């Protein structure tokens, strides 16, 4: 009885750890299996009892995808498209969010709602009209069309998140800068932007991942290894007679790696970005 609250505390703590462990397993296990698959020989992959550990291991699948299937070309395409998308998203979204949050704009919430409504279209419904528009403009099978489409998909999110971020910066900072002689552009570049770096990093990553992983539009608007992005490239692996599970897994691991590295690299800013505004500074 004496230490019943201690026991309770202990139980609570154990329950918390078990629950966290379950969630981690739930989200990470499929990925780990994917990693394991990428190192297993085809023979093992088609065995009646699948094995979780890649033993004996092989690097055949990685060799396959780069040597035979020219996977690096898809990676270059994806990097260009996702990189440009991120860049434009941040530049345009940052300027738009700054104007909405800080300048005298009438109907700002109407405008924000309108921007949000853009992202509510079911994407499959706009593929066909966009296809016609793109082919009329001669933009089929170009980086340009993909960047334009990903921009329109990514901007609402970027504008909303950055708008929220800018709102947390005290007005007095703007006013101090205005009295110091800053115009709107100078205010944005020298004051608001450096103060919002975590917000920019977070939204930039989200935009990058969105463009990096997008499949449907990429499939519809590109038609060759010179322009197709990674998800389309991976889909190309499968042919009529054979699903190369090992190669698919190897490709998935290769394309996930940059994302994991990006997130780890920017971890400090992301945590700051996702928790900003939680406490009064």
């Amino acid at each position, binding site marked *: 009885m004496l230490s019943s609250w201690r026991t309770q505390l202990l139980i609570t703590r154990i329950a918390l750890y078990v629950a966290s462990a379950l969630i981690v397993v739930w989200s990470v296990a499929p990925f780990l299996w994917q990693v394991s698959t990428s190192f297993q020989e085809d023979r093992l992959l088609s065995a009646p009892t699948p094995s979780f550990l890649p033993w004996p291991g092989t690097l055949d699948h990685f060799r396959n995808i780069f040597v035979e299937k020219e996977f690096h070309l898809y990676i270059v395409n994806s990097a260009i498209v996702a990189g440009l998308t991120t860049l434009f998203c941040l530049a345009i979204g940052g300027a738009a969010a700054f104007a909405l949050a800080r300048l005298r704009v009438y109907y700002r919430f109407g405008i924000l709602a309108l921007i949000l409504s853009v992202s509510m279209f079911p994407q499959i419904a706009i593929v066909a009209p966009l296809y016609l528009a793109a082919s009329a403009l001669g933009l089929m099978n170009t980086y340009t069309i993909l960047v334009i489409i990903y921009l329109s998909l990514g901007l609402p999110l970027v504008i909303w998140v950055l708008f929220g971020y800018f709102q947390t910066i*005290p007005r007095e*900072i703007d*006013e*101090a800068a*205005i*009295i*110091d*002689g*800053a115009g709107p552009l100078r205010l944005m570049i020298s004051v608001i932007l450096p103060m919002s770096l975590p917000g920019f990093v977070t939204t930039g990553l989200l935009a990058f991942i969105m463009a990096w992983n997008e499949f449907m539009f990429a499939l519809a608007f590109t038609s060759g290894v010179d322009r197709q992005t990674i998800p389309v490239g991976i889909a190309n692996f499968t042919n009529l007679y054979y699903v190369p599970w090992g190669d698919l897994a190897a490709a998935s691991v290769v394309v996930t790696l940059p994302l994991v590295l990006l997130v780890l690299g920017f971890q400090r800013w992301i945590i700051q970005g996702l928790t900003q505004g939680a406490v009064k500074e």
Partner: protein
Amino acid sequence: MAPVSLRSVTKAYGSFEVIHGIDLEIEDGAFVVLVGPSGCGKSTLLRMIAGLETISGGEVVIDGEVMNDVPPKHRDIAMVFQNYALYPHMTVAQNMGFSLRLTKVPQAEAAEKIRASADILGLTDLLDRYPRQLSGGQRQRVAMGRAIVRNPKVFLFDEPLSNLDAALRMQMRVEIAELHQKLGTTMIYVTHDQVEAMTLATKIAVVNKGRLEQVAPPVRLYERPQNLFVARFIGAPQMNILPARLAGAAEARLGDGSVIALRRSMPLGEGSGVSVGIRPEALLLSEDGPLGGRVTLAEHLGGLTLVHIALTDGTPVVLQAVGAPTVAVGDLVRLRIDPAGLHLFDPEGRRISTPGES
């Protein structure tokens, strides 16, 4: 350095007027404090001088030039904000030099100005720090440094000490007063703290509900409040205000029936309702005084004692005595009034002046 004039300045949001035609002359080198309760419009007034709020009517004139349509950066003013508003990603030196950078002052000259200002404020050792590495007082000093590097015509302070704790506030108050003596620049300072107003100002403007109640040097404001609002607002503890009726030539009868002598006969008819204002230090314990009451609380502040007394009709008053008078809760006491601390106000709340007053 420059004089500032407000000429029937008004501010309206839509059809809702918050500043109702304010006229105020601020001489070159003056330290004017705008003081008033929160929401009275004093900050709005300051922001209109700064150019952060548009001017709905009238004129703001700085150094002889009408500033209504001049953007803040061309008004040659500097402002210190309540929450410092430092740029968190810049060092102290960069914070102070931001305005110089924007106006393309040569680097060597800017560095020299920053160093000179840092010297004045004792920030020399902190120039490479970031705001987050500074204490509240240091941050406020940086905010002032950012203002002085520019050598502006007018300094504007918007409740600069409200975020500091009591000890630091007192210290910074002294520093601001010294800064004003050193620089001699016109300063306009907004606060709701009447102690700050009394100690810093060469001239206080009491603002209430978008109007000026009285503009005067601190001591004059204390000794000759023009109306009940100023009488209540200036002075701590507050002036005791008692309703009374004129009785006889130069006497007034209070609510409890006691009669007090006035210094002269009043321009109002006998029986007129007036308000008698008595500063707490003008209430004196005296065995044969005209007022009677019971002690309800004695607050010993060390050098001073505040004695709370309920008069015989229950009206509470506060008496401020030097030292520690021997009174206990429940004691019956008699009080007299020092005529120097006695003020009379007519039914509209305006001061009734006594001879010798202007």
